[in-house]
């Protein structure tokens, strides 16, 4: 009833082995390869992403530190600038004050000098005028023996009086 032909079994065995080899090469290998390739691509991509993320985090930390430092530093700079400016201001004001005082003093002094020299001029002129006037009076009334120095004395005395009045 069941006719088993030995050659049949041999052929079938060979066929099955050949089929296994062919299908491994044609179907299993390409699909496995592509799946493995994709896995490595994805894994390396994930690794890269993780690396760049940690890198970014480190950078962010660094920047945060820098920023907080920069805030403190800027405050510091502003403080010192204010300090310097205040010092400079005070110095300038003091300088200006002394300068102004000096100018005032100089001005006063030069006014004094001016007045003194003017006084001197006026004095001598008044003296010569008085002498002239006296001469003219003497020419007319012959009082030539009256000495110039007397007028001079008189005038100096009256000048002193003026001076003391003006003070």
């Amino acid at each position: 009833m069941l006719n088993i032909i030995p050659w049949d079994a041999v052929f079938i065995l060979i066929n099955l082995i050949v089929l296994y080899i062919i299908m491994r090469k044609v179907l299993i290998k390409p699909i496995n390869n592509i799946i493995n390739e994709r896995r490595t691509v994805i894994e390396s991509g994930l690794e890269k992403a993780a690396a760049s993320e940690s890198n970014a985090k480190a950078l962010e930390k660094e920047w945060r530190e820098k920023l907080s430092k920069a805030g403190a530093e800027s405050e510091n700079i502003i403080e010192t600038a204010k300090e310097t400016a205040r010092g400079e201001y005070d110095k300038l004001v003091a300088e200006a004050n002394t300068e102004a005082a000096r100018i005032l003093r100089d001005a006063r002094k030069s006014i004094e000098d001016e007045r003194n020299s003017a006084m001197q001029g006026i004095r001598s002129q008044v003296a010569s005028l008085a002498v002239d006037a006296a001469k003219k009076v003497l020419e007319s009334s012959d009082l030539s023996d009256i000495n110039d120095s007397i007028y001079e004395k008189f005038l100096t005395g009256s000048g002193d009086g003026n001076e003391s009045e003006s003070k």
Partner: protein
Amino acid sequence: MDIGAVITEELEVEVLFNIPLFGGIPVTETVVVMWIVMAVMAAGGFLLTRGLKIENCSKRQLIVEAAYTKIYGFFRDLVGEKGEAFVPYLVIMIIFIGISNIFGIFGVKPPTKDVTLTGVMAVMSIVIIQIAGIKAKKTKGWLRSFASPTPIVLPINILELGIKPLSLCMRLFGNVLGAFVVMKLIEAVVPVILPSVVSLYFDFFDGFIQAYVFTFLTALYIQEAVE
């Protein structure tokens, strides 16, 4: 109609031609249909795996990859980590048996209807199961596994070496033969419409179920052997 005659006729394996070597090597229908199945599988595999890409996969590639991953994962879970090397064999076997079983719809005799084929496949399976066991446990451990859990079961374990392939062989052969005979009978009684409907069950459903059962059991035996 004599059912006995039909079955006897279907059990016969026709010799299609003889290779004129060593006094004539008979080439049976089973072998020729197997060649066709192999050609179909090789061509299909080649066409399906052409131009595979890592990114921007075509729909064809997505389907192929999804199906392959699914089947591979199924057997991988069954045989366990140690038996992973045998997963490709199981994947190829389930495809081969599945396609062979539905070859009856093309009017040829499905090769799995030949007890020689199922017998050879069952023997191959039991050999691979033993290889898996030797690989996983070394020869000493493999020999000892026959006497586990207690030495009393030793004869039963040895018997299993014959029983396992016999049951694998006969289950597949019987189912396919039965389906084929039933289909022939239905075709003889009602030649139109009904056969196409019933063939959905007998050829496709039963065919795939038997392919599944054969490889599923082989996977279970491998898992048992490597554990």
